[in-house]
């Protein structure tokens, strides 16, 4: 049992930390978020240059062949800076789907370009009625000739506006909520019949609603096996869940640091408000939540590769429950302890709070994962 970072991991951490410190001052971020894409090409080029875009991919594909421990290191620092570049969508959702399920041809066509920073991806899995059920899929993929014709709607596709390719979950067989019969397809952003409605999100990111009106794709567009897309999708989402939880830990640490500093300096009734015992204890609880969240991310990074899918699923759900609960506690606490300033757009506090709130809302919220964890637990009992 060894829970410390190795030298490479420490170097990675330092390098992402430095990037955030130098490139992600709060006002810089505000400007970046107001650009057309909502993020900077120059930052993305830097990610490529530093190798971050290749972390989870094999050395054959030009990646570093690292794993979840390392992507979690990156995401935690991104959380501290509220980084806007679509690392999650491109590397951890789209890229991982291709890396884990894609054909050799797909991997060759996409991964090197992705790693070099030349391609953006998105994963379109949610639908209006699906909530967090990954196999509640109405978008249909009908066999036509050697290929397929996709029709339907996909919702809240992160990085939809910038993605060159979108991986779309569609139903090739079975009923609306059957686990069997979901297939992933690689769709070009310029595919005929694909229309997007792009919009900003609460946390200054970008997403799209997709409408697929008889979009034709070839047989080579299938990512993974026909009808068996759910298992791949679930594995990718479970991994991305851990990563986004690491991001949340970064948000919490930043919020706690800001709040800690604020209550030490802000005076009321002639003393720093950090002298009031009730605020002290709340701050202690906020730190405890952040500590426990960090512990759970550690747990999950170490268990996510377990050969037993139940172990992986439990780990992903456990950490998401923790982050849902702790993110809310820390976020609300930071706002409250900042008083009026905490509810304004002016301070970074509300922006971390918004990101933490949205993190709970994706990949299954606290309740979804509590239920999922409980079901796995009860099956074993």
């Amino acid at each position, binding site marked *: 049992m060894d829970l410390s970072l190795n030298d490479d991991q420490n170097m990675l951490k330092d390098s992402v930390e430095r990037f955030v410190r130098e490139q992600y001052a709060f006002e810089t971020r505000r400007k970046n978020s107001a650009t057309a894409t909502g993020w900077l090409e120059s930052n993305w080029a830097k990610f490529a240059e530093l190798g971050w875009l290749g972390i989870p991919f094999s050395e054959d594909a030009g990646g570093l062949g690292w794993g979840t421990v390392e992507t979690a290191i990156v995401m935690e620092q991104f959380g501290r800076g509220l980084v806007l570049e679509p690392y999650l969508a491109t590397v951890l959702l789209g890229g991982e789907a291709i890396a884990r399920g894609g054909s050799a041809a797909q991997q060759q066509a996409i991964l090197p370009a992705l790693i070099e920073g030349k391609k953006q991806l998105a994963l379109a899995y949610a639908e209006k009625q699906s*909530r967090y059920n990954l196999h509640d899929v109405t978008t249909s993929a009908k066999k036509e000739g050697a290929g397929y014709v996709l029709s339907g709607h996909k*919702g809240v596709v992160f990085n939809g506006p910038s993605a060159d390719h979108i991986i779309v979950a569609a139903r090739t067989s079975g009923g609306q909520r059957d686990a069997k019969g979901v297939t992933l397809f690689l769709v070009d952003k310029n595919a005929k019949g694909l229309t997007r409605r792009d919009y900003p999100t609460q946390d200054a990111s970008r997403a799209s609603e997709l409408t697929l009106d008889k979009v034709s794709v070839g047989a080579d567009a299938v990512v993974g096996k026909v009808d068996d897309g759910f298992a791949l999708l679930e594995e990718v989402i479970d991994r991305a869940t851990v990563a986004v939880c690491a991001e949340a830990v970064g948000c919490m640490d930043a919020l706690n640091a800001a709040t800690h500093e604020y209550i030490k300096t802000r005076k009321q009734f002639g003393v720093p408000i950090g002298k009031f015992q009730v605020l002290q204890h709340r701050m202690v609880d906020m730190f405890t939540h952040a500590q426990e969240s960090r512990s759970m991310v550690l747990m999950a990074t170490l268990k996510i590769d377990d050969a037993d899918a139940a172990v992986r699923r439990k780990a992903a759900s456990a950490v998401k429950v923790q982050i849902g609960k702790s993110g809310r506690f820390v976020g*609300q606490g930071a706002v*409250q302890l900042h008083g009026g300033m905490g509810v304004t757009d002016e301070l970074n506090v509300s922006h971390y709070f*918004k990101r933490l*709130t949205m993190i709970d809302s994706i990949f299954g*919220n606290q309740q979804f994962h509590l239920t999922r964890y409980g079901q796995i637990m009860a099956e074993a009992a």
Partner: protein
Amino acid sequence: MDLNFTEADQKFRAEVVDFIKTNLPAEIADKVKHGKHLSKDDHMRWQQALGRKGWLVASWPKKHGGPGWTATQKYIFDNVCAEMNCPPIIPFGTKMVGPVIYTFGNEEQKQRFLPGIRESTVWWCQGYSEPGSGSDLASLKTRAVREGDHYIVNGSKTWTTLGQYAEWIFCLVRTDVNAKQQEGISFLLIDMKSPGVEVQPIIMADGGHEVNSVFFTDVKVPVENLIGKEGEGWTYAKFLLANERSGIAAVPQSKRGVESLKRIAASEQQDGKPLIQDGAFRDKIADLEIQLQALEFTELRILSSEAAGGAPGPEVSFLKIRGSEIQQRITELAVEAVGYYANPYLPGLLWQGSNEEPVGPAYATTAAPRYFNVRKTSIYGGSNEIQKNIIAKMVLGL
């Protein structure tokens, strides 16, 4: 003990329903129902209709133009208004400065200011908080120096809600810097059109413009705008804060919020079934509804003992705390209910009244912004921590 309404009360209820049906424009009710932003005009249209009927200042004594309602009638009025999606009544004139003026103002001030409040022709705002003061209100620094027939006011106020619409502001200012902290404070009415008054928006976490900073640079204020005596402003301020807390439980509004939450949960699907059929989510709404009922009956008990002669005491702080927690919980559950569709942010639809199509269901558009916004309710009007200090000291003697 009896929960039932008398026949007269039933009749009154019917009259209120009737009035609202006739006087509240449907498009305004619709905005309220969906939690959208109201324009100044929306507020004014509704409040002026109430003003013409004599119902705008429900808590005022009859001799100052109040309707002379019983506690039960006020309860009925508030509940019907919330049920029928009436805009909330802006409190700065009606609940705040109005009672200060008729209680501590002179005859001329009453004549001059009360009609505009009763009829909602003048928009008031509040100049209490300052950038450095927070919950420690009495530490305020805005100075008013007497020069002949005027005060010269310098300083700034913040968290001035809807100050961008206001014609007048009531301010706490420091008229004596040598007196003990609370004793050098005076209560001044200032015309917002006076030279030297500048309003700067503060953008909230939800992206909305609802509060402001107000800056005063050598603003000349006639001495006849001083309420009561110089140096006694703190007394009036405390009186006003006590009034502000009445109704702060926001029970009727939260009832509407819970009903709306149930509709959302009945509409949202999970695994092909309405979310409200999910045990965990249903438990959460049930728990919230029970909390709200506990708050409602606590408020009724307090009203009932006030009606029986008891004065409104520091126990109203309970209502502020629990009321704000419940308002916050409603929005928290709405965000939980809409799932992924909490994410899209549509400022045009929210703030500029655009006709843009919502991305998800219409109710999802406001879910997250409202959640972010109502975090304020445990902060403003004396944070919940301050309210607990008040109860600890005033009620429990600790």
